[in-house]
C-alpha cells in the first residue's frame, strides 16, 4: 500500500471501491493510509454502503459525505461504484474519476455490467483501476483511453488477432471508433 501523499494542492483520490449489492468487495483500492487495517477498511465500506444503499444512483452519479470524506457513487445492476476524496476535494473531479471508471468498466464488460461478469473479468477490472489512479494521483479519466489501455495490451507485440478475445476485439474497435469520431 502506497503511503498517502499529503499534497495540499494536487487533486487526490482516497479510494475507489467496487462493491456488490450486499456491500461485499468485488475490487477495492485504498490510496490513503487512513484505514490501516483490513477491519478498518471493511468498517468504512460498510458505513458507506449502508448510507448509500437506499438511494437511487442509477441515472446520475450521487454524492454524500461519510466521516469527513466526500463519496460520489453510481449503481448499475448489482454493482455499486464509489470514489472518495477528502472533504476539501473538488466534488466534480471525484465525479469525473467515477464516470471514467464506470464507463471504462461498461466498455470492457461490453455493457453486461453486473457482479458476475465483473468477477469473471476481475483481471480487467484490476487493470482498469491501475490505469485510472496511481497512488492517489489521477492518471487518466477518459473511459475509452482507459479501456483501450486495458484491452489492447496484446496488440503491441503483434500477437495474432485470433488470440484476442472477443471482448478485446470489441473494445479495440470501439476505441478506434471513438478516436476517429473525436478527430
Amino acid at each position, binding site marked *: 500500500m502506497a503511503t498517502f501523499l499529503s499534497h495540499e494542492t494536487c*487533486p487526490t483520490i482516497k479510494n475507489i471501491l467496487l462493491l456488490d449489492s450486499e456491500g461485499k468487495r468485488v475490487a477495492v483500492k485504498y490510496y490513503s493510509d487512513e484505514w490501516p487495517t483490513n477491519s478498518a477498511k471493511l468498517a468504512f465500506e460498510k458505513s458507506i454502503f449502508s448510507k448509500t444503499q437506499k438511494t437511487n444512483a442509477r441515472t446520475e452519479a450521487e454524492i454524500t459525505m461519510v466521516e469527513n470524506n466526500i463519496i460520489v457513487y453510481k449503481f448499475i445492476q448489482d454493482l455499486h461504484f464509489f470514489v472518495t476524496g477528502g472533504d476539501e476535494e*473538488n*466534488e466534480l473531479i471525484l465525479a469525473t474519476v467515477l464516470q471514467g471508471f464506470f464507463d471504462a468498466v461498461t466498455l470492457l464488460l461490453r455493457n453486461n455490467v453486473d457482479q458476475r461478469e465483473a468477477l469473471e473479468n476481475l483481471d480487467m477490472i*484490476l487493470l482498469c483501476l*491501475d490505469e485510472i489512479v496511481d497512488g492517489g494521483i489521477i*492518471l487518466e479519466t477518459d473511459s475509452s483511453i482507459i479501456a483501450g489501455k486495458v484491452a489492447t495490451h496484446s496488440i503491441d*507485440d503483434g500477437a495474432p488477432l485470433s488470440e484476442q478475445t472477443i471482448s*478485446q476485439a470489441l473494445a479495440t474497435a470501439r476505441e478506434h471508433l471513438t478516436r476517429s469520431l473525436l478527430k
Partner: protein
Amino acid sequence: MAQPLVKKDDDRDDEADYSPFLGIEKGAVLQEARVFNDPQLDARRCSQVITKLLYLLNQGDSFTKVEATEVFFAVTKLFQSRDNGLRRMVYLIIKDLSPSADEVIIVTSSLMKDMNSRTDMYRANAIRVLCRITDGTLLTQIERYLKQAIVDKNPVVASAALVSGIHLLQTTPEIVKRWSNEVQEAVQSRAALVQFHALALLHQKGLGLFDPDQQNILLNLQIRQNDRLAVSKLVTSLTKGTVRSPLAQCLLIRYTSQVIRETGVNSQTGDRPFYDYLESCLRHKAEMVIFEAAKAITELSNVTTRELTPAITVLQLFLSSSKPVLRFAAVRTLNKVAMTHPMAVTNCNIDMESLISDQNRSIATLAITTLLKTGNESSVDRLMKQITNFMSDIADEFKIVVVEAIRSLCLKFPLKYRSLMNFLSNILREEGGFEYKKAIVDSIVILIRDIPDAKEGGLLHLCEFIEDCEFTYLSTQVSFYLSRIPSYLVALCFSQILHFIGNEGPKTSDPSKYIRYIYNRVILENATVRASAVSTLAKFGALVDSLKPRIFILLRRCLFDNDDEVRDRATLYLNSLGDGSVAETDKDVKEFLFGSLDIPLTNIETTLRNYEQNPTEEPFDIYSVPREVKSLPLVEKKAPGKKPTALGGLPPAPTSASDAYERLLSSIPEFANFGKIFKSSVPVELTEAETEYAVNVVKHIFDQHVVFQYNCTNTIPEQLLENVTVIVDASEAEEFSEVGVKPLKSLPYDTPAQTFVAFEKAEGVPAVGKFSNTLRFTVKEVDTSTGEAEDDGVEDEYQLEDFEVVAADYILKVGVSNFRNAWESMDPDTERIDEYGLGPRESLVEAVNAVISLLGMQPCEGSEMVPSNSRSHTCLLSGVYIGNVKVLVRLSFGMDATKEVAMKLAVRSDDVNVSEAIHEIVASG
C-alpha cells in the same frame, strides 16, 4: 491470450450466487502458483492464478512473509514469457506484494530491460512498478531513463514517469529536483494529462524547496520570492489557452490561490493579484474548472462582496443543475460562505428553498442550514413550515444538524422564540433516536436559559414531553421507545429534565402548574426517575412557600414507595424542610440540600479513586478534594483531531468559550452571586514571551462586578510556586473597589492555573480605568530528579504589565443580518448624531479600524472593508451594550486632500442614554 475466467454460458438463472471465486482457498492457490516454475509456461493459466492471488489480497487475505517471498520469486520467473497480458498481471502483483529491498534486486534488471523496451506499455508500466518498489539507492541508476521518459513522445510513458516523480519526491526529493528542465518541457506538452502531471510535479518541487529543515530561513524567503515569480510567470503564460486539461486548469487555480494567500492584497490599489484570472476561469467550459475557481474565490481571505458576487452567481446556476454532484458542490460551498457572508448568499434563497425537497437528503440538509443562516427575521415562519415537512423523511444525523442550526437561529432572533420553540417541541414528540432527542432537549434548555421570555413556555414543553413519553410508552409505543433506546438512557434524560425544571420552575410566575407533571413521574416511572422527581418536588417546596403544604402531602405519599432511594429522599426532605409547618425554610438547609456542588466533579473522581486505592479506617472527607479547576479546558486549546462534522456542519457554537468561563467562575463560591457574565475579553498578555512566568488576564464583566482572571504558567522546572496572588493597584481606576481575591494554592511547572481578583463597580455603569499588577507568591525549590519540593519557601514578587478596562469591554459584538431593517425598526427618537474630526490619517482604512476597535462592535454586511482610494465610506456596526441594550451605529467617513478625516456618527439604541454613552466613548477616545 489471457481471458481466463470468462465463461460465456448464458444459463445463469439457477446459480444466483455463482462466483468464479466460490470456495477459493489460499493454500490451494499457493499450490497452483507452482505453475509459474514450469519450463513450458502456460500464459493463460499463469494469468488465472495471478488473478486469484490478487483476488485474495483484495479481499483482505494476507500472506505470511514466507508465502509472499515464495510467490514473489515464482512471479519473477514469468518475465521469461513474452505474453503481454501476463506481463501486465505480473506488474500488478509485484506492486501488491510490496517486496522487500533484497527481493527488489531480483526483478530490477528485468524491469530495467522493460523500461527500455520499444513497447510503450512496457516502458510506462515498468517505470511505475520500479519507482513504487525501489528505494533511493537504485534510483540513481535509473535516473537517466526516467529523465528520458519524462519527455517521451508517448504521453502514457511521460505521465508514468511524472507521476512516479511526484511519489518519489516524498522519499528522495534531492534526485527529483534535478529533473527541472525535463519537467519544464513536459509542461508544454500537447498531451493534456502529461501537462497536468508535469504541472503537479513542478509545483510539488517548489514546495519541496521550502522545507525548513534543509534551508535556512533567509535563503528560504528568497526562494519563496523567486518561486512566487515563477508561479506568477507560469500562471500568466498558461492562462492564454495553452492549458489543455480541466484537471491542469484546476491545479493552476489552486496554485494561484496559494500565490494570492502569500502576497495578500495590494495595499495601494486594494486589488488582488490574479483575481482576474480566477474570475476568468468562471467562464471556462468545464464545470470542474468553474467550480474550482468559484470555490477558490469564496475561500480568499477577507474576500469582499464585490469579489464574491461573480462566484456566487455561477454557484447559483449550479443549484438548479440536473446533476446531484453539482448541486451538492454548490450548496456546500454556499453553506460555508453563509457563515461569514450571509448577505452575499441571500440572492440564492429561492433556489435554495426548492432544494429542500431534493431527493438527495445531504443536499436538502445543506440547503436548510444555509437558509437558516441567511434568513432574516421575517422569513423564519415560512421557513419553519417548510422544514416541518422535511424533517419527517431525513436521517437522525441530518436532523441533529438542523436542530443545531435552529438553535443558533433562535439565539440570533430571540423575538422568534415562539415559533422556533414550538417547532422544537413538536419534533421532540416525533420518532427519533436518543442523540437526536438529546440535541432537541439541550437546545430547549439553552433557549430557556438565554431567552428570558421563552422560559415559561419552554418549561411547559419539557413537562409535556415527559408526560407524553409516558403516554406513548403505555399505549402505542411510538416516540422514544420505538427506537429501542436503552431505558437507563431515557431515565438519565428524564432526570436531567426534572433537575432543570426544579432549578427554573420555582422562579416562574406560576410554579404550581408544574407540580402535576412532576408528581405524575412519581406515580408512573421507574425508580431512578421517581427519585429525581422527589428531589424536584422538594425544590419547589423549599423555594415556594405557598406550595409547601401541598408538596408535603405529596412527599409523604412517597414514604411508601417500594424503592429505598425514593423513600430515603422523601424522608430527608420532609425532615429538613420542617415537616408540616409553613415556616420559611432555613437558608442553610436550602444551601445544604440544593446548593450547587462547588467542587469540580473530576477532582472528586480522582480523590475518590485515591481513597479507594489506599484502604483506611477514616471516612472520606469531602473537604480534602481540591477545589481549583485544573486547567482551562476550552479557551486556550482547540478541540484536537477531527474537523467539524460532515456537511460543513455549523459554525462552532459562539458561546463555547464563554460557557467555559461561566462554568469556571460559577464554581468559585466567592463569585457565584455575581450573576451572569456579560462579556469576557480575549486574554491580554501581561508578560513578555519566554519570561520566567507567563501571565495573561481575561476581563470578565458582570453587571455590578468585574473579575480579572489571571492565567499563570510557571516555566521554571526547578520551582514550585505557592499561594500565588496578583496584587492589583487600582489607584488609576477610581470607580472600582476590590471585593475579593481568590489565590492559587500551588503552581507547579508547566501547569497553567488561575488566580482571580474581583472588583465592584456601580450597576450597569461602563466604568473604565487602568490597573497595575504585581504577582506575589512563595517560591519553593524543586529537585527535578525526584520532583519533590523543599519544605521552606521564600516570598517573592514579580512585576506584571498594566492593563486597562475600556469602553469596548462593555459592548458585545452581536451582528445583525439586515442592518437597514434593524435600523428602521428602532425608535428614531433614540437617534443621536454628531460629527467628529479624526485628524490626519494614513488612509480611511486606518480610521475605520480605529473607530471599530474603540467601540468593540460588530461590523455588519462587510462594511468594514474600505474600497481602495475611496474618499468616503460608510460603516455599519452593531452590538449589545451592558444591560442588554441593543445598539446600532452608522459611521460616515470622509477624507479631504490633506488626509484630514471627518466622521459623522449616528447611533440608535433601545435606550437614549446608551446612544449618548456611545458618543461619549468616541468623544473621549
